[in-house]
Structure formats: C-alpha cells, structure tokens
C-alpha cells in the first residue's frame, strides 16, 4: 500500500524513468533558452510526486514533455518500460484550467479520452459515471460546463484524466486558480482518489505546504537552466489529514524545502 512507501526507490521498477532530459528552444529574442538541463527523475509505481519551483524553472515544460505534447530535446524518458515518443494512452493530464468543451455535457466531457481512444462506450460510460460519483458530481452529468463553478469544473477535468484508466496522472497546478478553502478540499479528494485508484501521480505546484501534504517525494527545481536541485522523501504517515499541517514533522519538511528559496521566492 501507499503507506509503506517512503521514497523514490520504494518500488522495484519505477513507472517513470527520466535520464538526462534537456530541452532548449528559441526565446522571444531568437537566442536559445535552456528550459531543462540534465533532468534525472524516477517515479515509483503508485507514488505521489510533487514538483515545486519558481516561475520559469521549466516545471510546466517537464510536464508537457511527459504528456507528449512537446518533444523532448535530449535524454530519455521511459514510462512503464516503454520509451516515450509522443502522447501516450497510458497517461492522463489535468491542466491548470479545466479545459472543458462547452458544447458537451459533463458526462460527455469526461468521456473525451475514451472516445478518442475508441474504448468500448458502455464500459467507459460506466467508469465516467463512477468517477463523477466519486467527486460528488453525479447529479451534474447532464449539465453543461457553463453551469458549474470553477472547482466543480476542475473536478470534471480530473475525472476526464482518469476515465481511460491511465497508470500515470500528470497534474499542472490543477487547483492554482481555486480559493484556499476549495483547494484544501480538492487536495483531500485527490488523495482519496489516488488511494482508491492506486494511481501514480506527478503534480506541479507553487505551494510548498501543499507539496509536502500530498507527496511521497518533493522535487525542487531551479530556473536558468531548469534543473532539479533537491529531491526530498516525505515520510509523513498516510492517510494525510488537514491537522498535520500544524505538526512539527510537517513544519520541518516545509522549512527544509523552503531553505532552497530566497526571500524573492527564487533559488540562489
């Protein structure tokens, strides 16, 4: 179970293995910008990994490369032992904004990956309904995105990312646009779903406490060039509860990670 897992090496065969990943692209002035340099990262099966770092440290680039929507520059990425060379059926992505299609109802939005991958419609619909049920939106299956609040829409986005049963879930600051209260609820819900689905999660966030609360390992990235500067295993017991925010162990983790950032929120 997740509770026994404590670090990047907990699983025998990592689900995700990134070695020497680099990415350079032309900046606005035509000069090359090194977005990522020498990224090495392993994510064990069933593990929850959070990436924190200042703006422009390449954490979104890393996620978009893993999602297969941006080509890698150099290095290798393996997911479940297979070399990544584009979008994968085995990956689900939750974006910063919900990105729902306004002309499809909620159920039909959740079904999008299943339709794209031509999965059996009845199974997929049943799974979509289960997922909506799990996030408490079963009553909204036939409503349209415009009728839902931002938090509800983001939950639909989460269901959509899970409907094709991916083994890896990528999340790019999924709750960044939500208010603090909704965000806490969503984090608890995410942990519950992660536990239930036995998924492997890579989540990008700006918030160090959020990363510590969610993760088995917290990866700290720095900018120019985008690189990993530290990787902390988080051994807080599972299931995590909101009152853990005030425990000394929690505070120690947050302080250790925060020590990488200077007063401007950047890494020296």
């Amino acid at each position, binding site marked *: 179970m997740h509770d026994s897992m404590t670090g990047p090496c907990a699983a025998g065969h990592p689900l995700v293995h990134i070695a020497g990943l680099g990415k350079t692209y032309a900046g606005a002035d035509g000069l090359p910008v090194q977005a990522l340099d020498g990224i090495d990262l392993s994510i064990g099966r069933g593990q929850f990994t959070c990436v924190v770092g200042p703006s422009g440290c390449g954490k979104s680039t890393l996620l*978009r490369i893993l*999602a*297969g*929507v941006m080509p890698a520059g150099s290095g290798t990425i393996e997911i479940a032992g297979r070399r990544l060379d*584009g*979008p*994968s*059926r085995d*990956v*689900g*992505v939750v*974006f910063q*904004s919900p*990105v729902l*299609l*306004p*002309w499809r109802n909620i159920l039909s939005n959740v079904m*999008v*990956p299943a*339709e*794209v*991958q031509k999965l059996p419609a009845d199974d997929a619909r049943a799974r979509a309904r289960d997922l909506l049920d799990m996030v408490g939106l079963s009553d909204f299956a036939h409503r*349209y995105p*415009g009728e839902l609040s931002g938090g509800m829409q983001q939950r639909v986005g989460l269901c959509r990312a899970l409907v*094709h049963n991916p083994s890896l879930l990528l999340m790019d600051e999924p709750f960044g646009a939500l208010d603090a209260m909704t965000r806490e609820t969503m984090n608890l819900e995410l942990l519950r779903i992660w536990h239930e689905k036995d998924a492997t999660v890579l989540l990008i966030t700006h918030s160090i406490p959020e990363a510590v609360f969610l993760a088995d390992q917290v990866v700290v990235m720095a900018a120019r060039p985008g690189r990993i500067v530290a990787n902390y295993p988080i051994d807080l017991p599972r299931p995590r509860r909101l009152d853990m925010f005030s425990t000394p162990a929690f505070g120690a983790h947050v302080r250790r990670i925060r020590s990488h950032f200077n007063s401007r929120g950047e890494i020296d």
Partner: protein
Amino acid sequence: MATPRALTAVFSSPRALSPVVLLVLLAAWEGAVRALHVPAIVLPAPSAVVQALWLEIRSGTLWPHFLVTCEEILAGFGIGAIVGIGLGVLIGQSRFLEQVFYPYLVAAQTIPKVAIAPILVIWLGYGLSSKIVITATIAFFPALSNTIVGLQATPREQMEMLRACTATQWQIFCMARFPQALPYIFAGLDVAAVLSVIGAIVGEFVGARAGLGYLILQMNFSFDMAGVFSILLVLCLIGICLHLAVGLVRRRVLFWTAGQADPLPGL
C-alpha cells in the same frame, strides 16, 4: 390616453421605443407628402405604397416573381454557404494553405459582382442559373472567411488536451476546431443571407424575364413609384426573414453560447 408612467416605460425600453420611432417617421413621411403635394411619381406616400402592394398581391402579379427571386436567393445562398464553408475547412486546415490561397480569394472578392454579372448572364443565360451563381459568389466570401478565422480560434489548451489523450488531427477537428468555429460560421452566414438578396436583384437587373428585380425595372419604366417602393418593402421583408431564420438555427445549434456576444458583431 397613455398615462405618464406608460410613456416613461416606452421611452426607457429600446424594444418598445424602436417601433414608435418607425411609426413617427412613417407619419411624418405621409404628412409631408400630403401637405407639400409631392407628386406620386417623385415620392409616393406610405399609404400609396401599402395600397400598391395590396393590389399586387390581390391581382396575383407579385406571387410568381416573388417565388422566382426567393428561389434564386435560397439556392444561391445555399450553394455559396456550402462551397464557402467547405473551402474554408480545406484552407483553414493550416496556416500554410491559408497563406498560399487566401490572397487570391481576397483578390477575387475585390471584383465587384455587378461587373461580372453581365458575363455570367452571357455564359448561363437569362434563366435562374445565372442569378443563382451571382448570388452564390456574393454569399460565398463571408462564409469562407469566417470559417477560416473560426478554425484558427480554438484555444491552444483545448488542442493540447486532445493531443495529450492521443487524438488525431481529424479527431481534433471534429471534437474542438469545428464546433469552436461554428459561432464565426454563423456570423458569416448571417451576412451572407442578407447579401444574397442583393445578389439576386443585381442578377435580375442585368438580364432576366422574371423576379422582383425584373418587376422593379418594369415599374420604373412605367413610372409606377408606389409599385417600386412596394417591391423594396417585400425585399426588405425577405432579408429580415432570412436574418431571423439564421438567428433561429444559430440559437438552436450554438446553445452553449447563450448570453455571449457574437464573435464578429461588426460584420
């Protein structure tokens, strides 16, 4: 008599005030023509126009011409819209194709349709087909250009979301780009519908044996000004009906944009 409160209500609501303005203008027109003894050959009074229209309807002279022009408008609009949307979908597939073909389409569009109408009449004869083609060439361009613009309007996030779940280009087109383009396409169709009326009349002016444009010319030759104005009124009503019909279909199809502004309100 209307109470002051009812008057205030009329003057503060554009929907109520708009017909009042029309009535006031018509009354002023009628009054001016009568008071100044304007000859009917120069400017007929609204009452004379309505009377002329009534006579044309009762005598049955209007109906066959009305049908011919409606057929030209609807067929021309339909062909122009289908070809415009179809070609727009092909060209809108990529910026590359757009940059190759679009300049020539714009160049072709700058040729006044009135100027090519005589050629089309020579090629296709005095019958329906020349008017339908002229109407189609006018209706075609707004459908085409709005389809191209609309297909480029899909947010990057939607494309990435679909690509991330392994969608093909065709799936992205069907699931996001085309529905996303629909508000633009309908705005184009609205313009095309109203322009279609012009197309049919231009075609009939150049050479025809029937139709409302033909009728206008005949009445003009016999100095029947009230008759000419009554046909203008009919043309106006056709245009309004087409606009309303496009709006009705638009609201049915684009149910999710209820309450949102038209993407290209100026067109």
